[in-house]
């Protein structure tokens, strides 16, 4: 365990708690909850892309899978604890298998991107065709493009009638996000995390050291899938309906944009990117003067041109730069780096 790598984690968590209580002063709980869920989704891609070097064009596949797994099992089981666990486990296993298929096949870079993209499209197309009554799992009809409505939403574990919604759903999601954040930080500080970063840096060298990079990448990819699945389940509980739109190309692209704008190589960056851009999309959706997609596209272009490493890493190095000037002789620490073109 590399303790020095965790030095700033308590501060981030403290700041997160302040934000958790401050944010409701500005926005309603309903919108905030969605932003927190987006943050968790971005965190999942920020982990595998920023630290594992795995560019996944189909993080939405795991998100949607988690949402559907939750909706289907909640419609059948009722009480939400088991559906919640299933919504993490199913995307986890699926991501592991998909990852193993890719990494043991030595697929890299853009080829991997295509596979993940294709998988998402398959889910999207398939879910759209399940309108007929023959597509039924237990009590749940898949419902095609209409999606699945009317299942048990999140409840206090053990008590199916104690729904967690609105205000309490917001706090629950936020606390879960903070817990996931801490767990991921611990993971990254552990030898497993260090080796994952080493694989991002130089997969050949890690293999020459005798580590099995393929297995480790599959596991990391699966963890990312599990977190995305958890975000999906929380989304399902928030929206009270799941539709194939969760698997759409637009959704996948949005996650990537959140990560790029927020900054790869950090965890806070993607989360903030998701929350800010998610809010912007919501705010722009309130008016009709400017097209929402146009503004989002513009933001992405500007950020990529002006701050190619993303907002948060640029801020961190700017901060370090200024603090180093104040204390001469301080050794320069390298800021978190973006993913190189080849990794």
């Amino acid at each position, binding site marked *: 365990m590399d303790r020095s790598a965790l030095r700033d984690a308590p501060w981030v968590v403290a700041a997160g708690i302040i934000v958790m209580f401050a944010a409701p002063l500005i926005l309603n709980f309903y919108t905030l909850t969605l932003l927190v869920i987006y943050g968790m989704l971005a965190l999942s891609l920020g982990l595998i892309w920023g630290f594992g070097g795995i560019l996944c064009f189909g993080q939405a596949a795991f998100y949607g899978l988690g949402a559907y797994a939750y909706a289907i099992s909640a419609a059948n089981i009722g009480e939400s604890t088991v559906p919640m666990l299933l919504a993490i486990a199913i995307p986890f296993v699926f991501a592991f298998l998909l990852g193993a298929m890719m990494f043991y096949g030595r697929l890299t870079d*853009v*080829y991997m991107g295509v596979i993940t993209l294709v998988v998402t499209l398959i889910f999207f197309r398939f879910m759209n065709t399940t309108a007929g009554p023959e597509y039924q799992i237990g009590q749940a009809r898949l419902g095609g493009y209409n999606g699945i409505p009317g299942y048990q939403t999140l409840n206090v574990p053990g008590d199916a009638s104690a729904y967690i919604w609105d205000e309490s759903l917001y706090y629950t999601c936020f606390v879960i996000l903070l817990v996931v954040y801490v767990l991921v930080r611990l993971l990254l500080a552990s030898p497993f995390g260090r080796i994952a970063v080493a694989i991002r840096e130089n997969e050949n060298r890690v293999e020459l050291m005798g580590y099995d990079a393929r297995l480790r990448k599959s596991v990391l990819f699966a963890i990312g899938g599990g977190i995305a699945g958890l975000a999906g389940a929380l989304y399902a509980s928030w929206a009270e309906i799941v539709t194939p739109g969760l698997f759409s190309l637009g959704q996948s692209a949005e996650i990537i944009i959140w990560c790029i704008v927020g900054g790869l190589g950090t965890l806070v960056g993607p989360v903030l990117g998701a929350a800010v851009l998610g809010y912007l999309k919501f705010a722009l959706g309130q008016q009709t003067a400017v097209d929402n997609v146009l503004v989002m596209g513009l933001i992405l272009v500007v950020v990529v041109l002006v701050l190619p490493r993303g907002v948060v890493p640029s801020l961190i190095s700017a901060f370090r730069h200024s603090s180093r000037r104040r204390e001469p002789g301080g050794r320069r620490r390298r800021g978190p780096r973006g993913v190189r073109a080849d990794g």
Partner: protein
Amino acid sequence: MSAAGVGTRLRPRSGRAGEPIFEVRENWGDRRVSTPIAGFTLGGYQINGYNFFIIIVSILLLVASYLVLRGTRLGLVARGTMQSADMAAALGYSPDRVYMTTFFVGSALAGLAGGVLAPLVGLVPTWGTLYIAKAFITVISGGASIVLGLLSSATVFGLVSQTFTFLSGPVIGEVALLVAAIVLLRLLPQGITGRFFKGRL
């Protein structure tokens, strides 16, 4: 990228009707015009003239891009930059400018494709996005050789997709295409031309 072509094609149409654009979107079904080229019969078969035209245009474009890449100095520089940007820069070519040019040509081709295809489909502003994923998948699955790779992957995917569409409907056809892409990339991790026709254009 075909969005550029879509946009230009859309403007005169909505303008002619003298209506705001959002109504075009809502009524696009009514507004279809017949394709500009009449059909003809060949033996016992009716052939749609415009579809035939598209096929001819595609073949011409493919041959033309092959000839440009193969035979001209510009094509040679572009291929060289693709193989090794540093080396091309060392020889005095600016990779940035080469990328700019190829991007320009690529966008122009995409625009042309949009324009050519427009009479066949119901146009909405977001129509181009339908093709992004497929174009991406086809190009990547083709591998490093531009023309041959594209030709082979497009043939494979087209065949698979149309066979399954014919057998059991368009959705299965599309899913079959996607599954074919996964299987193909799993077996040939560098795309089709990573193994076959290696080093050819």
